[in-house]
């Protein structure tokens, strides 16, 4: 490139022209904006303020198997103020508290922790009068916003409270972890227990955002199109529960401490499951009330405790069926085996073990008779033909000693002691076969939950297989209803068919035979089979058990019911089960498979 000044100058000029025209274009644009359209833009800047608002996703509903709504949302009105205006001497704040007759200091304290973005909540549930007052005096209350928001509603109060769970306000950690675009902001509610907690991430959906324009009078004048994110509503859940049956169960347990489970035998669906006493989740839906919470927590009857899944009790006499199954399978006894007759007590080593019929004893009985009359002495002798490990193995085959596999909150596994257990407990060689005597009648260290007992008896009465209990039947979202429940069963049977048919006969006689302990469970027109139990309780009166299924030949439902500190199973629990079954069979709920609608 030679240095030719004139050529270069020429080129320089062309470049100047080029850039100059570009800058001229910019000048024209600037002139247009700042001179020609100045007033428009000035007006826009002054008048319009924009807020990005969160649009809350509606929380998913919970329904029973037939579509009866158990939990849904109603609406509440929330009053909020910008953070800048949250001061005692702020005129808007003063006017607001004056109009609504609120205590300014109290509001300041409460609102300090209820913030979202740049606003603070003054009133969480404004009632109709308060809303009217605010609207009437709108012009004196710039910067105050009224948002209509959902409030969780448990339609039937405390019904199925332990299963449904409840919601609570999110922790600061949840808010921090969410960041700017995450699911939780301060003041949000989230599922804390039960179903609400278990499928929280599906129930909550995903919130959306919208940008709204607000003018000087603080009315929303428009929404910025396309500047937001659509809401994804929460997923709805269909539970396996049957609301009428659940209601019946809870009414039966009213005023008592205990728990009950109703399983649909062919599928494993949980038709009803209750723990008493219970509580009303509606108390928590609007935000925790500390006094209520303390009251519930310190109640000695423990209403927050879910006895049906977490309550582990000595199974008592219903466990005798396990012992019988074990001995029959191993060929140690047969249906006509007899032992020393029952005189009311039995000597073993240097200890006396009693039968519950302690005065007269039962006399001479065969196996079926021993089951029917629930003779402890017969079983003490039967037990000695087994080892503790053999008994434990059978118990495990019946699903005891481990979690039921319910896809929900983990349910307790209970306790089935074997020789390892006793070795660890007492030391090797430090325990005797005497433990069998306790175990065989369902006492000692044995622990089982009502769910486990119902499941075991359902297998016994049904096809011999344990089924996985199901609580969640289906989900519904924008694309429709999708069944998610799978019927699952354990492939190994609980015992051989031969043994099972004998045991079933015996169980039917427990209810139908005149000497049977379960007579009060008889139901007209339906054959009920089951076993009573009276579990000894070192801390008070015995617990009353009744575990049954009906109709006996080809069961539709299995029920396990335990009432704490209530005395005899036959006297207390059996009639309750009868009432429950009556409810079921007279309403004749449709059987498994489809979601009846």
């Amino acid at each position, binding site marked *: *490139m030679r240095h030719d000044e004139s050529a270069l100058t020429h080129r*320089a000029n062309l470049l*100047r022209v080029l850039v100059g025209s570009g800058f001229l274009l910019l*000048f024209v644009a600037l002139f247009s904006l700042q*001179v020609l359209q100045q007033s428009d833009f000035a007006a826009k*800047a002054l008048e319009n303020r924009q807020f990005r608002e969160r649009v809350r996703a509606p929380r998913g509903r919970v329904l029973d198997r037939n579509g009866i709504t158990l939990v849904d949302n109603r609406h509440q009105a929330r009053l909020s103020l910008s953070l800048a205006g949250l001061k005692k001497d702020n005129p808007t704040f003063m006017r607001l508290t004056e109009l609504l007759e609120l205590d300014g200091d109290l509001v300041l304290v409460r609102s300090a922790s209820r913030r979202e973005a740049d606003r603070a909540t003054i009133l969480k549930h404004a009632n109709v009068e308060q809303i009217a007052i605010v609207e009437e005096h709108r012009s004196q209350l710039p910067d105050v916003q009224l948002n209509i928001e959902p409030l969780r509603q448990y339609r039937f109060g405390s019904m199925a409270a332990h299963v449904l769970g409840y919601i609570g306000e999110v922790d600061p950690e949840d808010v921090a972890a969410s960041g700017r675009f995450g699911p939780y902001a301060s003041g949000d509610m989230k599922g804390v227990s039960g179903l609400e907690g278990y499928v929280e991430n599906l129930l909550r959906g995903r919130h959306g955002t919208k940008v709204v324009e607000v003018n000087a009078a603080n009315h929303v004048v428009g929404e910025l199109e396309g500047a937001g994110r659509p809401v994804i509503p929460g997923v709805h859940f269909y539970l396996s529960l049957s609301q009428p049956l659940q209601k019946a169960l809870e009414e039966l347990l009213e005023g008592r401490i205990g728990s009950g489970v109703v399983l649909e035998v062919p599928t494993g669906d949980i038709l009803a499951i209750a723990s008493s006493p219970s509580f009303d989740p509606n108390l928590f839906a609007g935000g925790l009330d500390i006094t209520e919470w303390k009251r519930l927590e310190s109640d000695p009857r423990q209403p927050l405790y879910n006895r049906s899944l977490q309550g582990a009790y000595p199974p008592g006499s219903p466990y005798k069926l396990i012992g019988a199954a074990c001995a029959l399978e191993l060929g140690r006894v047969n249906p006509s085996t007899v032992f020393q007759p029952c005189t009311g007590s039995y000597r073993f080593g240097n200890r006396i073990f009693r039968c519950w019929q302690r005065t007269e004893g039962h006399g001479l009985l065969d196996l079926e008779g021993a089951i029917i009359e629930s003779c402890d002495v017969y079983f003490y002798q039967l037990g000695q033909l087994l080892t503790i490990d053999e008994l434990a193995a059978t118990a495990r085959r019946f699903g005891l000693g481990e979690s039921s596999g319910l896809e929900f909150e983990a349910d307790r596994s209970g306790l089935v002691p074997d020789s390892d257990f006793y070795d660890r407990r007492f030391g090797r060689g430090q325990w005797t076969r005497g433990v069998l005597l306790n175990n065989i009648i369902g006492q000692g260290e044995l622990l089982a939950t009502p769910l486990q007992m119902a499941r075991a008896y359902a297998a016994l009465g049904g096809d011999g297989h344990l089924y996985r209990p199901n609580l969640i039947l289906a989900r519904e979202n924008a694309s429709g209803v999708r069944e998610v429940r799978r019927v699952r069963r354990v492939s190994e049977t609980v015992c051989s068919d031969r043994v099972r048919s004998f045991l079933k006969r015996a169980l039917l006689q427990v209810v139908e035979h005149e000497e049977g302990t379960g007579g009060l469970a008889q139901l007209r027109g339906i054959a009920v089979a089951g076993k009573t139990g009276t579990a000894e309780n070192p801390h008070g009166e015995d617990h009353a058990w009744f575990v049954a299924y009906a109709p006996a030949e080809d069961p539709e439902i299995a029920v396990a019911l335990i009432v704490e500190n209530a005395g005899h199973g036959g006297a207390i629990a059996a009639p309750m089960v009868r009432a429950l079954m009556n409810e079921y069979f007279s309403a004749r709920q449709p059987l498994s498979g489809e979601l009846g609608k």
Partner: protein
Amino acid sequence: MLRSGGSILARADGVILLAWIGLLVIGLAALYSCTVPYQSGDGVVPSNVDFAVFLTQLMWVLLGLAVGLICIFLPFRFFETFAYLFYAGAVILLVAVFVMGEEQGGARRWLSFGPVGIQPSELAKVALVCVLGRHLAGRRSQRPTLKLAGALFLALPPFLLVLKEPDLGTALALLALPLPMLYWAGIRARFLLALASPLLGAFVMFYGQQTWDSTIPWVLYLIALLAIVFFSRMYMLRSLMLVGANVLTGLSIALIWERLRPYQQERIVSFLRPTEADLLGSGYQALQSKVAIGSGGLLGKGYLQGSQKGLAFLPERHTDFIFSVVGEEFGLFGALLVLALFALLLHRALRVAVMARRPFASLLAVGVATYFCFQAFVNIGITVGLLPVTGLPLPFISKGGSSMLASSIMMGLLLNVSARWSEV
């Protein structure tokens, strides 16, 4: 042979120096304004741009001044000798961004060394100018096509690397830098135009569809092209080739775009503009910028008193949209002042380029002028809504250490050349 510092400075073009200082002052003033709380009707709204940002920028300004001064005093043959080395270094740094770069807002542009971070793409601009100057100044009787090819080959690697980050704005800047320098080196304007036009046409078609969803801008462009071809009396074959190439690229862009499904279109768009920290989209940014500037009127709302800025309606106001702050608070006068300073810079830089006796120095001056003017045009064009939003800093005014550093080096080079061949 170092002459005394003072005399060197005295020889350098004072107008350029003043323009430099002027832009720095405006930049710092605008940035300071961003950090100040806003006096609203009934309260004070704190700014979410921290004061520390201003202090950091101040530090970069001082550092830049120092670096710039060093560049003035260094014998500029230093730059000529090491041009290829700088270029290689810049490319290495750009590659390093892929390997060790920090991800931010969906793009990888930064390298961090402890508390300090640099954007190699900014330094790449400097390196490219130097290396192009060296290359084009090289052999005197080299055939134009070779020079052209060489220049494009040099620009390609940094362009691609930056495009992949992705940083569309800077990538385009890298592509734009060679063109005036090629022209200056003797390639004829028509040649360059012909070369660039299909690409230009494609861009016009794409942005026309993007911003206004219409092909009219492209049609206008085509008409202009035909007019130029006609009036420049090109050979028939060549004119046909030229127009044909343009039609080809324009239509293929249009057709491909139509074929794409919405989500694919979405992806391309967001690929090109990944710095959308808001859910709100670039339409929001552009609108707010215009509101800010427009509402400033002739004289502006007054220093520190911009409401769009103060109430945080103006996103990225301390970086890409800082010109909007100037427009809002200083009005048309302020905006034109900035334009005038850049225009002045251009004018004097070209003057320097004409006077410089060595080809390398002359080319350097043109490169520097391009660097400043292209970026200023694009950045301001975005803020007034003429161009779609891509990120390109306003030299000396936008917040950013790497940009400040690169701009200061460029300024230093310019003043260096100016001092060497000034009219005394």
